[in-house]
């Protein structure tokens, strides 16, 4: 009958396609690569003890036994993490399993929690989260303490906030400073400071990289605006007022800025972390030309890393942490324009190559950067998320006067 012929055809086609594709698909699951010793095994740390070569071989071997490390929310292009991936693979020979590169910090913790007891590749071993999530993770029992061998090289405080948890539950890795990223092809006269943004020539051109109710970058952008308009780290309201003004002037465009929208011209002026802005500048390579400048005052935000309390591959996670805080790891981040927590120490020991030092912005450019504490951040977040809709939102039922 005609039916069974058709059905037969469909099923056959699907089976053939499936068969072929399963050949392709299985090729994507790579078995752990046989480790090739790239460095001479070192058992005891050397005198400086800060290089990846100084990571104890016993730890590396334990990691090789585990066979995999699962990371989350860590794109290769974020602050040059790609080089850190390579450092890890060269040191340990172990495959990196990367989950959801676009995950937010809350997702990362939720993933740890949901995967309690699961040793499969769905469970993250290590997380890279926003500063506010240090305390949350500890409170929820999601982190396990580990102090890297370069622990003493990490300052106790940086920008006025702790750069590491005293018990070792989390460690600050790098921080970013809020900057202004401008598409020079679309904007002939780039703004340089907060007050510039209100000028009529920038109508419909100023954007954020996220939704201020969700995104760390966006909330900090509003928070930074507060600092510039009479507010402080304890008072974020002027930030909302500033964006209110910006919106009323018609300068604010609500599109969430991505590389594409910046290049296309829909969001030519963006407030973003400096390492992302400089990264975009390199990626675009002049098409279009980008200008990155620091407004004053501005805000800095530290990102912290922690090992999951339920990590299926804890030794690999430890190797990862060691790499992050080795000289090479910190330099990798700096090559990505992020500010490594150990930068001062590296400078003191003269380990920063001249070409890298020339590429980086002078620290005087962002001398006005301050970092909020977790409590200040929580208070600001609450204020901003609740006030945002009445500030720039549309269609909100206005409460009766």
């Amino acid at each position: 009958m005609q039916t069974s012929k058709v059905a037969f055809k469909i099923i056959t086609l699907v089976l053939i396609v499936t068969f072929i594709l399963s050949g392709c698909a299985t090729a994507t699951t790579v078995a752990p690569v046989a480790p090739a010793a790239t460095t001479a095994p070192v058992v005891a740390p050397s005198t400086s003890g800060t290089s990846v070569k100084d990571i104890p071989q016993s730890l590396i071997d334990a990691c090789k036994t585990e066979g995999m490390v699962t990371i989350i929310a860590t794109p290769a292009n974020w602050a040059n993490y790609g080089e850190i991936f390579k450092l890890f693979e060269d040191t340990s020979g172990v495959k990196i399993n990367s989950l959801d590169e676009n995950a937010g910090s809350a997702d990362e913790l939720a993933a740890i929690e949901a995967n309690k007891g699961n040793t499969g590749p769905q469970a993250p071993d290590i997380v890279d989260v926003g500063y506010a999530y240090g305390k949350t993770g500890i409170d929820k029992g999601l982190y396990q303490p580990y102090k890297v061998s370069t622990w003493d090289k990490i300052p106790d405080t940086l920008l006025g906030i702790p750069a590491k948890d005293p018990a070792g539950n989390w460690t600050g890795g790098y921080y970013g400073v809020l900057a202004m990223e401008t598409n020079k092809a679309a904007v002939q006269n780039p703004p340089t400071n907060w007050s510039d943004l209100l000028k009529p020539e920038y109508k419909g051109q100023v954007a954020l990289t996220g939704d201020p109710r969700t995104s760390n970058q966006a909330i900090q952008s509003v928070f930074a605006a507060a600092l510039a308009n009479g507010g402080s780290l304890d008072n974020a309201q002027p930030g909302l007022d500033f964006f209110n003004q910006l919106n009323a002037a018609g300068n604010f465009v609500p599109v969430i800025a991505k590389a594409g929208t910046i290049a296309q011209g829909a969001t030519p002026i963006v407030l973003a972390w400096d390492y992302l802005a400089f990264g975009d500048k390199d990626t675009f390579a002049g098409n279009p030309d980008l200008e990155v400048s620091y407004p004053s005052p501005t805000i800095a935000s530290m990102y912290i890393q922690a090992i999951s309390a339920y990590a299926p591959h804890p030794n690999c996670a430890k190797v990862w942490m060691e790499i992050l805080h080795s000289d090479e790891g910190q330099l990798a981040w700096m090559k990505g324009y992020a500010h490594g927590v150990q930068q001062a120490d590296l400078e003191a020991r003269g380990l920063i190559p001249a070409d890298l030092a020339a590429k980086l912005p002078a620290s005087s450019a962002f001398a006005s950067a301050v970092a909020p504490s977790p409590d200040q951040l929580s208070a600001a977040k609450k204020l901003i998320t609740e006030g945002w809709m009445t500030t720039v939102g549309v269609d909100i039922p206005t409460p009766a006067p």
Partner: protein
Amino acid sequence: MKSRGKVWAWFFIILGVLYFFLPLLATFIFSLKAKLGVLSFQSYINVFNDPKFIRSFTASLLWASLTIIVGIVLFVPTAFWVRLKVPKARTAVEFITLIPFVVPAIVYVFGLVRTYSHPPLLIVNSPLLLVSAYTILAMPYLYRAVDIGLRSIDVRTLTEAAQSLGAGWFTILFRIILPNIRVAILNGAFLAFAIVMGEYILAQYLAKPAFAPYMAVLIQNRAYEPAALAVLSFALTWACMGIITLVGRGSGQAQVGGGH
């Protein structure tokens, strides 16, 4: 009067074509701007040079195909049975088929992980779980497509006629009903296919390869390649669906009891 009807028909078609085509055109033109000052296919070359593109695309193709099969096998008999034998179940079934719309994907995937990462139900690593989850995501569309297909034919008469000729349920379902709702199933399959290809969260948190995460990473970092990718995946998916249509080709008008 008929010619006036035809004018209206052309009007709506042209309007529809313009609405669908212009945004694509804008994306396409933007994708050609990867090289400063000239129009070139550089962004497409970059995309093709990336091995992750083909890998992730074919992985999603695999998931989509399996999802369609599972969906048809599950939902066609169910919709048939509900229409014919258990109409009282209809409200409950329809409600369930619409629930996937209101469950946030992130909540759903963590629920799946929690439920299926412990023995005896340790299937969190299995593709079976991902395909089942995708079937659930496609359920609103697939079920509704099948349901409307069944409404459009006289199920009762067909079934009774077949039964009176001695056909068993399997024959009725797969040799009589199925061919008559071919268009509906095909369209439902298109929808299921597109959904799986565009799905992001489930594949990521179940640690399986997929296309949408690859696209999402590009969107974050590259300006022109995402546009090229959008155009490419659009064209490729359209081609796949064209192939599916050719394979399942038959006349648009089904043979229904009563037409002879």
